[in-house]
């Protein structure tokens, strides 16, 4: 095995070595479904065989572990790794259903401003060498936690619900992400019946304001709540329509699905009668 000299390193760098994509899932506003989206997209991408690591960047309010059902397996967290109290291998939790999915949990008893931005960036860079996707679950807000979450990312997925507050915050966050970032949109919690009656902002209304490439639309369905209750992401459920939406979004992220995002429609009379399409 040849020693890595600076010359060799330069040669290696000139040959495009496949590196993982660092994607931050963000929204500005809290409670719009960032963590659920991160868990489901990670699961859906990993199911296709990709190596995926999810980083919970919400230091002090760890949640991604419980949504994934991995809360009992977390031994170390992201700050342990940054402070070299644990190795990366020790801190990574392997998903119980999809082995190519791993989680780096947030510190629960620490503060967001304890994270060093430069170290966080270096950590993401390190993970990009080992994984195909590094997906960062951003905390709500636009303070230190947000900066630490976006620092290593080259792409961003904005999660927005059809509410005025969420759209306004999403607009603000897009402005903060800068022009270098590739930004795409997921609209979450659409209720087709309300949109049809004109009582809810439609997908078109939201994106007329945000003007972002649309990755997908997730309908507001009770099974999302059930899945988080159980810690079982819907992307693993082949019978779930919401799971299928997340898998389609994963396909669009990976570039394997070039179809236009489907906008959830209210089930017709017959679909209601026969229990929907699935």
């Amino acid at each position, binding site marked *: 095995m040849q020693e890595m000299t600076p010359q060799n390193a330069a040669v290696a760098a000139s040959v495009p070595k496949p590196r993982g994509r660092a994607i931050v899932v963000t929204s500005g506003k809290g409670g719009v479904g960032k963590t659920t989206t991160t868990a489901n997209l990670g699961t859906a991408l990993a199911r296709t065989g990709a190596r995926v690591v999810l980083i919970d960047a919400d230091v002090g309010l760890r949640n991604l572990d419980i949504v994934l059902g991995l809360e009992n397996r977390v031994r170390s967290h992201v700050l342990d790794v940054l402070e070299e109290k644990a190795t990366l291998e020790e801190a990574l939790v392997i998903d119980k259903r999809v082995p190519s999915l791993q989680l780096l949990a947030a510190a629960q008893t620490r503060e967001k401003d304890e994270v060093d931005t430069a170290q966080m960036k270096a950590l993401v860079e390190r993970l990009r060498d080992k994984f195909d996707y590094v997906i960062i679950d951003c905390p709500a807000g636009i303070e230190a936690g947000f900066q630490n979450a976006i620092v290593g990312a080259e792409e961003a997925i904005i999660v927005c619900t059809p*509410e*005025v507050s969420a*759209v*306004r915050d999403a*607009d*603000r966050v897009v*402005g903060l992400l800068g*022009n270098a970032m590739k930004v795409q949109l997921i609209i979450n919690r659409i209720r087709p019946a*309300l*949109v049809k*009656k*004109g*009582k*809810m*902002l*439609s997908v078109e*209304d939201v994106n*007329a*304001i945000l*003007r972002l490439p649309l990755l997908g639309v997730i309908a507001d369905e009770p099974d999302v709540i059930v899945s988080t209750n159980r810690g079982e992401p819907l992307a693993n459920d082949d019978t779930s329509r919401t799971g299928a939406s997340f898998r389609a979004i994963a396909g669009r992220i990976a570039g394997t699905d070039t179809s236009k995002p489907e906008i959830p429609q209210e089930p017709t009379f017959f679909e209601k009668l026969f229990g929907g399409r699935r």
Partner: protein
Amino acid sequence: MLDFLTRFFKPERSGATAKERLRLVLLSDHLSLAPDVVESLKRDLIEVISRYCEVDVANTDVSFEQQDSAVAMLANIPILGLRNGRSTPPASPTAPPYEPPSSATPAHAALAHEPQAAADTALVTPTVETAVPADTVTSTVEPAKPKAARKRRRRRPNLSQQAPAT
């Protein structure tokens, strides 16, 4: 009873309200000038144009509109004639009374500051009225036309588009 009937025949569509409220709030989020600046801007604009043309001050309208990633300023300043005496028709007697700027023009609006759009912002849109040659002024001023009709004829601002000649 009347309340019930209106509700029955005209279902509430708060989605549209949400859309309009968002549009306005984002406009002011993207802008950073103080509320009174728009008024002084309008005054100064009229003053400059008045040096060359006779302006229908009562029917001027300055507003801001979201266009792609930028906010554009739309100035609708009807011109009654030129100052050099070639064509100075009197104001039409059928001119509508001054109507205040519609609610679509936020009083607190101001010039854009969106970082990536700094160059495209604050475009003064020459209205059809300001862009026409002097001898056709009378036929194009149409002060009696409803505001909405004039709005539709507005040109969209374009970076390459020059301010009216002369």
